[in-house]
């Protein structure tokens, strides 16, 4: 069974247990390290070689931890370690620190992946690894893309220079993989001796001059698009266009799935079955209350009945799932196209003022899907201070797709302006809280220094795999929590626990937030899942303004349980406590202020 140290960049591949990589049999003790610069296709190699699905994206830093899988060749079984991308073994960030440790621990063989389009820079790490004296094989990857850019690398000449086998490959299509595996047996220790750092570039320069030819070519459309995307005017225009189109696509796909497919299905196929079940259980019985919930005019109201199999299934599969599918489809496309790092350039100036740099747009965008991968991805940021700010901001002000789906579903029916109010309040809190943390927390935040990958047309296969893994991740993780959450909410309500807690916090809720104490139960249950909590608010008969205050407070207070666990893992106990205190303070301040404004206006 493959395992990944709980550290890969997305919960889709990580928390779910991975696909068969072959059981780790006792004789499988030989270790191969897969090393290379960031974004050279190591994860694509890893998936090809082991059959274990590793999330790969078109930007540096997708794999921050490391993954392990099994590679079987004729006669031998290896444990293959996907080492996080590093430019150098003299670490300049956490991923490189992990890479340095893994290489220092050594292995039986190393596969060094080189990006043929950026040979000079890639050779820095390659030479450092070769100098360790581990038998090596080099995969000269992306030879197709290099050829398109007019860069021709002579792999036979490179093989002579490095003294180890060099195989030209295209990992995404699988070209050269078989030859690479076949030549693993030829892996040998490079005869190259250690290079002193001051003459490193000279040595690399002379190797490059002997193995690489660059053919002059004219500016292509892609070059122009790449330049325009980081231009101060055109870049902003492209950014606005991409974000608006993405937003529209998520809405259209999500609504389309709901209105054309899932809602009709629930009405025509699920409702009759549940009504039969309702008759059998008998309305009013305690089992009926738990499973079906309250009937309205003798009918199930999917949004309000609040039974485990009525509202529970409806929330998960009709209200939330379509937006999860839509969001991840759009995000995965953006990831694989290479646009996200360009967005980082556009947002750097703004984010720098709230204590994080532009690259934090990537964890933030991931957080809009689910806070868990968002917070895991804060590892792409260099300093602890930045990671704390970014993770806290995500937990406080970035609503996950499930929560957003419910906000849009519930408030959108009453009026678009209420939805906008919720987003506005979250955005303003994000800016103010970031600014405050930047001013008050000791230390400084490092600068953006990042390589921008070329634009690529996402491969359909990799895209669908990634989308499927993310959707499956959501289903496996959310289903028990949503159904269990509603069950627990019903049990606690029946047992009077919710009523008791609601009484205890009633003054706070009545005076500060202007909410009935019954809303407290929903916000407390938000710890399990926030989408369920919004569902609990629906039957309370709140005014639109009260719903806005309640959803804003709910979004900002405690993170859901899954987010809490990763926060703890990433920040440690002390900083998590600090982060939680900030969340509570921000939630009640923002909720209280909104309530004050609403009462002032009325």
């Amino acid at each position, binding site marked *: 069974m493959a395992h990944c140290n709980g550290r890969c960049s997305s919960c889709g591949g990580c928390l779910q247990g991975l696909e068969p990589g072959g059981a780790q049999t006792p004789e499988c003790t030989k270790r191969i390290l897969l090393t290379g610069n960031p974004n050279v296709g190591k994860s694509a190699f890893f998936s090809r070689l082991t059959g274990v699905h590793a999330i790969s994206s078109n930007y540096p830093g997708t794999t921050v931890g490391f993954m392990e899988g099994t590679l079987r060749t004729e006669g031998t079984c290896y444990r293959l370690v996907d080492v996080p991308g590093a430019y*150098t073994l003299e670490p300049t960030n956490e991923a490189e620190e992990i890479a340095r440790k893994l290489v220092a621990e050594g292995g039986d063989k190393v596969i060094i992946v080189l990006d043929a389009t950026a040979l000079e820079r890639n050779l*820095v790490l390659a030479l450092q690894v070769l100098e360790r004296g581990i038998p090596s094989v080099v995969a000269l990857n992306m030879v197709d893309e290099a050829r398109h850019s007019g860069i021709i690398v002579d792999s036979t000449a490179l093989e002579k220079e490095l003294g180890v086998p060099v195989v030209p490959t295209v990992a995404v299509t699988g070209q050269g993989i078989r030859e690479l595996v076949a030549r693993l047996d030829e892996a040998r220790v490079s005869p190259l001796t250690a290079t002193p750092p001051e003459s490193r570039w000279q040595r690399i320069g002379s190797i490059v001059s002997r193995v690489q030819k660059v053919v002059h070519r004219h500016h292509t459309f892609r070059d122009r698009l790449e330049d325009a995307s980081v231009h101060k005017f055109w*870049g902003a225009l492209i950014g606005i266009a991409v974000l608006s189109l993405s937003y529209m696509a998520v809405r259209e796909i999500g609504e389309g799935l709901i209105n054309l497919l899932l809602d009709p299905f629930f009405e025509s196929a699920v409702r009759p079955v549940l009504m039969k079940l309702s008759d059998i259980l008998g309305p009013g019985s305690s089992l009926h209350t738990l499973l079906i919930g309250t009937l309205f005019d003798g009918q199930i109201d999917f949004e309000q009945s609040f039974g485990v199999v009525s509202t529970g299934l409806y929330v998960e599969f009709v209200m939330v799932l379509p937006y999860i599918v839509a969001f991840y489809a759009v995000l995965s496309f953006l990831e694989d196209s290479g646009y996200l790092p360009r967005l980082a350039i556009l947002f750097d100036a703004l984010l720098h003022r709230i204590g994080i740099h532009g690259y934090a747009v990537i964890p933030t965008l991931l957080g809009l899907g689910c806070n868990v991968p968002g917070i895991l991805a804060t590892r792409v940021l260099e300093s602890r201070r930045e990671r704390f700010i970014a993770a806290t901001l995500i937990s406080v002000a970035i609503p996950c797709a499930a929560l957003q789906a419910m906000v849009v579903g519930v408030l959108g029916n009453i009026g678009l302006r209420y939805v906008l109010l919720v987003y506005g309040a979250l955005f303003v809190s994000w800016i103010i809280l970031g600014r405050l943390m930047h001013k008050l927390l000791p230390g400084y935040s490092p600068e953006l220094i990042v390589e*921008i990958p070329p634009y690529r047309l996402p491969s359909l296969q990799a895209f669908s795999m990634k989308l499927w893994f993310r959707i499956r991740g959501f289903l496996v993780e959310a289903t028990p929590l949503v159904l269990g959450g509603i069950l627990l909410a019903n049990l606690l309500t029946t047992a009077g626990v919710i009523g008791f807690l609601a009484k205890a916090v009633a003054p706070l809720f009545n005076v500060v937030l202007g909410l009935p104490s019954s809303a407290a139960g929903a916000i407390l249950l938000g710890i399990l899942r926030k989408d369920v909590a919004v569902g609990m608010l629906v039957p309370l008969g709140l005014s639109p303004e009260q719903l806005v205050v309640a959803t804003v407070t709910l979004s900002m207070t405690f993170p859901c349980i899954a987010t809490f666990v990763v926060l703890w893992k990433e920040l440690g106990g002390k900083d998590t406590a600090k982060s939680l205190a900030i969340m509570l303070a921000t939630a009640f301040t923002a909720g209280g202020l909104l309530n004050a404004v609403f009462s002032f206006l009325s």
Partner: protein
Amino acid sequence: MKQTLNALEDGVRAVVSKMPAGECGKRLEALGLYPGKAFVKISGMPFHGPVTILLDQRQIAIGHGVSSHLIVEAAQSPGETG
């Protein structure tokens, strides 16, 4: 003329003459930028945003603070692009 990277005009080809000190310098070097290396400045973002350069056909974004400590020398007159 020697100047800082953020002061360099857009579209100009230049050569690195002095790297910023410390960690940032190391990170830039890891990305393939070292004294004597040629590149083209593509753009600088407003409001102290980052500078993007083209280094061996690959774009690299460099924060405003670091780019004001990277000393470069223009290799040709403005207007010509590499």
